[in-house]
């Protein structure tokens, strides 16, 4: 995994620059087909191990005056617990959803940051299956608590906000059903996937392109352009760090709003 040579790097025999494609994201390490052990799979397992180790290590001997590790863990936990769960779901019900939201946030954040952290440098969420799996968890949770609270019929009836003129009820009901059952999970998964995929592809283009211009092209202008490409790659890496954090936060925030909507009297 660490020594994985990018397949898009230009070949030494002058084959020309190969732009990175979507195929570069499929990287089986062992076996192939549906049971392949792929790079994102390994990165995901690595992230789970790392998170578990870090959270246990920094909270096992929790002190009143926290050390650096405990301070960071408590900071992230407090940010999700108070800033997302409590402020959105509300003081009455939020506590039982904090574990879910905190796990989602930390898992997505670490996997996103792996996109730029060497030697991993692979954003797991750029494989659509993983955001879909996370979305399914949120999907089941918010529909389950909504239906459990008021029953199936009232759940559908409550989708439409009160106070609308009567004739518009049916089209709005269709619109709400499509939104709640299809568009919401779709946008939730696609937003995370698209941001990570596009960001990583962009970095790939600038880094492999810069490498090609600098080492495999003729002429000082091309080499200068290669330096420019590396500068852009650096700037975009910083930008990507921001996006990675932001997307983990947005995913958690939206999961919290869906849960809050299912708990509210009207959605």
């Amino acid at each position: 995994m660490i020594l994985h040579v990018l397949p898009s790097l230009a070949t030494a025999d002058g084959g020309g620059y190969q732009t990175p494609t979507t195929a570069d994201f499929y990287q089986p390490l062992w076996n192939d087909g549906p049971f392949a052990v792929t790079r994102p799979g390994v990165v995901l397992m690595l992230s789970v191990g790392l998170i578990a180790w870090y959270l246990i290590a920094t909270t096992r001997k929790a002190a009143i005056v926290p050390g650096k590790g405990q301070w960071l863990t408590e900071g992230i936990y407090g940010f999700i617990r108070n800033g997302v769960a409590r402020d959105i779901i509300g003081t009455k019900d939020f506590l039982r959803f904090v574990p879910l939201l905190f796990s989602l946030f930390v898992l997505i954040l670490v996997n996103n940051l792996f996109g730029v952290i060497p030697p991993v440098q692979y954003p797991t969420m750029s494989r659509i299956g993983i955001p879909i799996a996370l979305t399914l968890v949120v999907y089941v949770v918010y529909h389950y608590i909504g239906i459990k609270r008021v029953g199936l019929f009232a759940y559908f009836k409550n989708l439409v906000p009160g106070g609308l003129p009567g004739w518009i009820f049916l089209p709005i009901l269709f619109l709400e059903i499509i939104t709640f059952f299809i568009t919401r999970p779709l946008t939730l998964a696609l937003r995370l996937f698209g941001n990570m995929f596009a960001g990583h592809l962009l970095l790939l283009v600038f880094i492999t392109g810069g490498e090609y211009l600098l080492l495999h092209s003729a002429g000082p202008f091309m080499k200068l352009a290669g330096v420019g490409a590396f500068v852009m790659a650096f700037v975009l890496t910083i930008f990507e760090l921001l996006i990675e954090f932001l997307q983990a936060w947005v995913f958690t925030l939206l999961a919290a709003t869906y849960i809050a909507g299912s708990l509210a009297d009207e959605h």
Partner: protein
Amino acid sequence: MSEPEQLPTPPTGPPDPDAGHPRMEEAYMWNAVAYLISGPVLFGGIGWALDQWLGTRFFIPAGIVGGMALSLYLVWFRYGTQQ
């Protein structure tokens, strides 16, 4: 003896434990995207099906535009009005 001037309660302080969900409305804005996609897709799809069935061509644009209008209305109704 003059009454000490009553100071207004400062806006900051320890958070009220029963504050409800102060940021729910603000966070709901993120949901608007889902509505704006649903409307054109749903009613554009219905329009497409009607066009296939009746052999016409105007139900798709009508559905997309009408769906968009309905989505905008719903977003406005949900988040733009005080209920």
